């Protein structure tokens, strides 16, 4: 039993789901649901359809190249069962997947950082330019310095001075 990847959207096809289409040149196409199947029949290119993994990877939206992908590789020759190896593998799989998820998230946040800087710049500019729209008495900027007049009584100082001397 094997989990396969949908040819169109690259999501996993669990057993009992989806349709497999075998073409005359013996190439097998697997689809996870009828949406992908129908898109395929309409001859749509998954690289141009926005919600597929193929599009996202091609346009740099999702992480494509990483060392965690090399752990998962389809092997054509079955390996002899070894309990120790299997144990280690079963323990390793969640770790690897966790790391992969983290890295994917980081990739996406990095991608979105540029948007944030632009937004901030825009806000600053707007603030600078359009502040004149508001009535002046409401606008109290922290940068504006208000003059506070402190009256210092001269007599007292003179008296103090005299006292000291």
């Amino acid at each position, binding site marked *: *039993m*094997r*989990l396969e990847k949908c040819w169109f959207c690259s999501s*996993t096809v669990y057993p009992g789901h989806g349709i497999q289409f075998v073409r005359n040149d013996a190439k097998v196409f697997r689809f996870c649901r009828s949406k992908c199947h129908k898109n395929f029949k309409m001859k749509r290119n998954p690289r141009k359809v926005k919600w597929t993994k193929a599009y996202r990877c091609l346009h740099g939206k999702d992480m494509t190249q990483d*060392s*965690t992908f090399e*752990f*998962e*590789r*389809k*092997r054509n020759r*079955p*390996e*002899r*069962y*070894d*309990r120790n*190896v*299997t144990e*280690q*593998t*079963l323990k*390793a*799989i*969640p*770790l*690897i*997947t966790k*790391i992969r998820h*983290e*890295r994917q998230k*980081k990739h996406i946040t990095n991608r979105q950082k540029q948007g944030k*800087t632009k937004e*901030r*710049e825009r*806000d*600053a500019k*707007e*603030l600078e330019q*359009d*502040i004149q*729209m*508001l*009535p*002046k*008495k*409401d*606008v*109290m*900027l*922290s940068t504006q310095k208000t003059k506070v007049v402190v009256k210092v009584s001269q007599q007292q100082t003179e008296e103090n001075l005299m006292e000291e001397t």
Partner: protein
Amino acid sequence: MASSCRTLPGRIEYLESVYGLIGLLHRELAAKLCINKMVQYNFKKITVVPPGKDFIDIILSRTQRQTPTVVHKGYAISRIRQFYMRKVRYSQQNFYEKLSTIIDEFPRLDDVHPFYGDLLHVLYNKDHYKLALGQINTARNIIAKISKDYLRLLKYGDSLYRCKCLKVAALGRMCTVIKRISPSLAYLEQIRQHMARLPSIDPNTRTLLICGYPNVGKSSFMNKITRADVDVQPYAFTTKSLFVGHADYKYLRYQVIDTPGILDRPFEDRNIIEMCSITALAHLRAAVLFFLDISGSCGYSIAQQAALFHSIKSLFMNKPLVIVCNKTDLQPLEKLSEEDMKLVMEMKAEAMKTIAQGGEPNEECVLLTMSTLTEDGVIAVKNAACERLLDQRVETKMKSKKINDCLNRFHVAMPKQRDNKERLPSIPQAVLEARANAAVAKEKKNLERKLEKDLENENGGAGVYSASLKKHYMLADDEWKEDILPEILDGHNVADFLDPDILQRCEELEREEGLRLEEEAAQEAFQIDGHELTEEQREILSQIRKKKAMLIQEHRMKKRTAESRPIVPRKFDKDRKFTTNRMGRQLSSMGFDPSAAVDRARSKSRGRKRERSLSRAGNDGDDMDIDGQQSNKKLRVKSRSRSRSKSRPPEEVVPGEGFRDSDQKKKAIKKAKDSVKKRNKEARRGEADRVIPTLKPKHLFSGKRSIGKTSRR
């Protein structure tokens, strides 16, 4: 022998001579063309012989179809003659061809292998057979003669009628001939059908012949060693004809022929069935297996069987003979009585004489015991018989002249001895020991081995026990055999991840990850965003944005045209919203000094009234003073009066308008109003307003009528 011989002696002699001539010719021809007659005999290819009537019908209908059918008496006489001659000739040719095929396809008893010749004689009587064929031949010749005669006569036919009569006569005579031979045709057809079912026995290949009394077990033996399925029944003469099967021995194919049982009778009294076996015995060069039933359950004692043996022992000349004692499960050979034993030994002695001169007098090969029921000794008998036959055949071949040609073709090269040293094959000691042990181990293993089937039966049978397929797995540690391996984990195939050094790689990965996280943390700390907005700034920004949104909304509202948005003109401002005070308040909220604007507004609104009040007696000093404190009522009164600054009666003639007098003006006003009245009733704004708000209002264009038609709307 044939009784019909005596009725027509002369005829038969004539026929035989004719037949013989034809046979001679055939043989010469065959010799010239080197046709190999010693092929697999197959009588299935003879064409069907039609009965007399059908024969005639076939030929006549063919004549009618294949020759022209239309002739008139006005034709030229030669044409008429040709027409009828053609028909006669065509019929004769067809008869000739068909009868020739019959004669050619039926085998000539003198030309086939004497075994078949005798067999056919036994079954069908040679003389009858030859007679029938002879008659056919005669008929053929007679028809040829008839046709010749009539063609000669037709050459001189002078009218259509005469030619036609001649043709009718010719065909009629030919048909009569055929009618006369129809019994022969029927007989030949029967023979053909029977011959087609004869077993195809090759008289020249290796053959084993099984003979003996009825019910001794010959057919059972046959069934055991070949794939033939011969009937085995308790009554005598179950097998009524020869049966052929094939058995293999030492990569060679042997024919095994099962014969019907033979009874001990004088030769002349034998029936056809027995004669078949006798024929087979006489003509086939085969190894003979004489079956003896030592238990006597066939119904005949050993003495009788021995008597039979001695009466036909002349037929066993030059044939390897094996005496087979059957049914040993009922009566073993050792426990036979004295006389029976003596008889058997006598038979054995006879059989020993037939051993080939060059062969060893091997006692075991002559007298064998077996039981077809328990299958004990069956294979041994077959092997012995085959072996002896093979030896004999090889010897015969060696002695014949042809072998020399073969021998000349191959040569066995023997290496010349260099010195007197003896060089034996060198087998290492270990191999010899292994061989010695292997035999012992194999025995032990065969005894001890427990099959899966036994295991299944012990543990509850087929439906209950399910064999553990993992039993024979070859793993590094046998404890792992019954492990259940998960194939899928969290949406990944485990098999894709399997790797002996996955631990190491995982550690590397974690190290990498640690490094990466450190780097990231460092980077984040380094990135000081100087452009971060403070809380206050954010608030101000949100206010700005709100303001902008409001402006946009108002603009959008204003953008809508007057048609879709009713605008209340200021003169119908019932809430009294638009006051100078309000304006003053709004201006001050924005931070401007409203006094100048208010004055301006006031001055504009009060303009005329002020002048007028000044021209009258100046009471307005008070008004000016209490400018900002006017009550609402006063404002109302004043504003109303403002809009009606000077009220004139409508008919009053104003000098600049162009009316002669007020009557004219009144008429003009009335005319104007009249023209507008209709338009106002239709809610039209003016002359040019031809707008129809709904072109097809639903209430006018839908609905059924309770009575009447809806043909117009």
